Every structure is written in structure tokens, then in C-alpha cells.
């Protein structure tokens, strides 16, 4: 409850800041560049959630405890939500600032590849007949997918594959081009968005664990839907040992 009130207040606060904040300097269109608050934090956070998903996948594979698998899917679902958010706000941003929705800018490309990689994750996940196998295979995939993240984030943009329009923008934000108030607002939004999505993650995990309990009580806790526990079954001796 307290958590939700906090979220509500924080939301109001951020909206207020967003309305009152001055336009961002260093961008072609300063006023509309305020979408920055909803573009950069999701873009940064989605990788965080994906990595968390991979960590949980590793723990699942080591422990074979389905609760970790639930956490892994939850993190990847939330990460995908953030990734979609970053891509969509980015597209709007790009239309306003650069004049076209899609340019194959390195950042655009890499986030889109990431989105596709995790879209494929869901196709894989729902292609197995049993939950245990599905958990094992999709965990392995999640780890493999996370391994591509460093290449996508750090190496690809540095290969000078394409001329990047993001470079100037990056300079404006990370290189300290923003004035101090702006930076405060920016980091506040970052934290608020993180908390929002952490909450979504928590909800998703709780729901998933309830599902697990139901699945287990189908068989284990209630003794199977179609048979009472027969007790111990032992072989009968056919002949004495000689």
C-alpha cells in the first residue's frame, strides 16, 4: 500500500517536473527533447532487467528450482516492456529530432536486435510440452542471449558501422552537457521508473509463484488428480537365492 502511494506521488512529481522543466539544451528541438526522460531510462534499464533475467536463469539451471525460472521470465518480460518503450519513444524522438522514424542508427539497430532476440525467447519458451523442459531450454537461451548484450551495447556502436546521430545526443547527456537541475530531474526519473518496473516485476513474480503452487498441488500436494497415494510398491520374490 505504502509502495503504491509512493509510486503515485512519484508519478505526479515526475509529470510536474516534466511539464515545468526547461527544454533540453544541445538538441535540435529543445522543447520536445524532454521525451528524453522516458527514452533514456527505459533504454538503460531494459538491459539491467535482461541481465537479471540471465542471472536468475543461471540460478535456475544450478538449482532446478522453478521459482528461479519464474523470476527469470518475469525479468525478461519487464525488460521487454522497457525495451519496447525505449524503441517507441526513440522513434518519436527520432521523427522530431532527425526527421525520420527509422534510420538504422547504431543504437536503434542494437536495441532492435535486442528486442528481436527476446521476442524469439518467447517463441522458444512456449514451444515445449512440459514446464520443466521449457524452463531449462529457455533459461539456457536467456543466458546465451545475455552474452550478446556486450557486443550489442559496447562493441557494435564502436565499429563505426554507420554514421551515428546518437553521438551528439550521448554527449549532451552523459558528457555533462546538461545543466545541474536537468541532471537531477533526469536521475530522479531514472529512479522512479526503476521503482515502477521493479514493482511490476514483483507482481509478476508473485503471480508466477501462485501458478507454480497450483501446478504442484495438482499432483504432489493432493496426491494426484486420478489416484490416491498407493504407499510403497516393492517387488515380490519369485524364487529363493541359491
Amino acid at each position: 500500500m505504502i509502495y503504491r502511494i509512493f509510486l503515485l506521488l512519484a508519478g505526479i512529481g515526475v509529470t510536474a517536473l516534466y511539464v515545468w522543466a526547461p527544454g533540453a539544451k544541445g538538441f535540435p528541438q529543445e522543447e520536445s527533447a524532454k521525451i528524453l526522460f522516458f527514452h533514456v531510462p527505459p533504454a538503460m534499464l531494459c538491459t539491467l532487467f535482461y541481465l537479471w533475467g540471465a542471472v536468475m536463469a543461471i540460478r535456475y539451471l544450478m538449482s532446478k528450482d522453478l521459482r528461479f525460472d519464474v523470476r527469470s521470465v518475469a525479468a525478461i518480460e519487464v525488460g521487454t516492456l522497457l525495451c519496447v518503450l525505449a524503441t517507441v519513444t526513440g522513434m518519436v524522438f527520432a521523427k522530431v529530432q532527425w526527421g525520420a522514424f527509422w534510420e538504422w542508427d547504431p543504437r536503434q539497430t542494437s536495441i532492435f536486435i535486442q528486442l528481436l532476440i527476446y521476442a524469439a525467447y518467447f517463441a522458444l519458451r512456449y514451444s515445449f510440452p512440459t514446464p520443466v523442459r521449457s524452463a531449462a531450454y529457455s533459461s539456457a537461451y536467456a543466458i546465451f542471449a545475455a552474452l550478446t548484450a556486450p557486443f550489442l551495447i559496447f562493441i557494435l556502436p564502436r565499429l563505426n558501422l554507420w554514421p551515428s546521430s546518437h553521438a551528439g545526443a550521448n554527449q549532451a547527456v552523459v558528457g555533462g552537457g546538461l545543466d545541474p537541475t536537468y541532471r537531477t530531474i533526469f536521475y530522479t526519473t531514472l529512479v522512479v521508473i526503476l521503482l515502477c518496473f521493479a514493482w511490476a516485476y514483483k507482481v509478476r513474480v508473485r503471480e508466477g509463484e501462485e501458478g507454480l503452487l497450483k501446478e504442484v498441488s495438482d499432483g504432489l500436494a493432493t496426491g494426484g488428480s486420478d489416484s490416491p497415494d498407493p504407499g510403497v510398491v516393492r517387488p515380490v520374490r519369485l524364487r529363493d537365492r541359491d
Partner: protein
Amino acid sequence: MNSSWAREVAAILGKELRVELRGRVGLYSTLVFAVGAVTALGIASIRGEPSPSLAAGLLWVALLFACVVGLARTFLSEEEQGTADLLRLLANPGPVFWGKAVFNMLLLIAVALFVVPLFVLFVKVEVVAPFLLISGVLCGCAGLAAVVSMCGALASRAQGRGLLMGVISLPLLLPVLAAGITALRGAFGDPSAESWSAVASLGGMAVAFSSLGPYLYAAVWKQ
């Protein structure tokens, strides 16, 4: 990486080669696709020679699709023929993964040996840095084969594995594709490309993917 490990990898590799030599389905389906694609691109680029970077892109697209078409078989057909159980009884996951990944690399390199000269001939690009071309193609093929092997291993026990194989491997191959293109841009005469660092990162990807592969395969081996 002791001697028993090497012996097991060799046994798997030998089996794959034998089976392939008797049916040659993998080699020919990869080759037919790659040659078909390159010829189509050759026909398409008769008017107006493509720029170095476009040429690099075309070559990689052909190789990328070809390996998705041909290389998944090593893992998928084991499940389809039902021999996966026999393998699980006899072998360990690490050597199986490596044996098959190495086989895939060899197959892809054989295809590339055929297709790259054909491409250079058909699409009329100029190779200014042959050594760069060769090392770029080799490292790229290794990267592609590593990713496709991993995806084949993951998709092999799923339903609708054929399409799923394409679904999960295409996105994961895209980083390899992007680096591969940069590597070949330099080879085809675009001075602005940082080709050698692209070759290095291709090599890095190949090493990273193929060293993680056995562990992941081991984790799903007996599920």
C-alpha cells in the same frame, strides 16, 4: 581439455562426417541455397555495381541464410531420427556440442570457399585486401556456426522445431552479421571501415559463443 575429451570430440566429428558423406544433404542444401542466393544477387546487380559496403552486406546475407538452412540439421535430425537417446546414453554433452559445432564450421567454410569466389566473380566487386577478406570470412563463419549450433541444440526438442530454429537463430546472428559486414567493407575497398577490429570482435564472438555452448548444452542435456 584432456585426451579423453579430444577423443570424444573426434568420435562425434567422425560420425557426422561419415553420415554427411553418405547423404550429403547438409552440404548440398547449404550449397544450393548459397549459390542460388549469390547468383540471384549477381543477376540483380548487373546494372550498377554495388558499393563496397553493400557488396559486403550481400555476401553476408547469403552466407547467413545458407547456414540457417543447412547447419541446424546436425542437431535436429538427431531428434527426428530418434538417435538422440543413443547419443545421450553414450556421450557427454560437451564433446557432442563441440563435435557438432566443429563439423558445422567445416561445412560452412567449405561452402564459403565455393561461394566467396563466385560472389567476387558475379557481383564484380574489387578485392583490395585479400588477406582481410579471408580472415574476415573465416572468423565470421566460425561465429555463425557457433551460434547456429547453439540454436540447433536448443530448438531440437521443441515442437515446430524447423521454423523455431530460424526464429531463434536469426536475431542472434545479427550481431555477427553487422561485424562481418564491417570486416568485409574494408576488404572491398572502403577505407573508413575499422575492419581489423571487426575481425577481432568476430573472433571474440566465435570464441565466446562456442565456449559458453557446451555448458548450456550440458544444462539441458538430460531434461
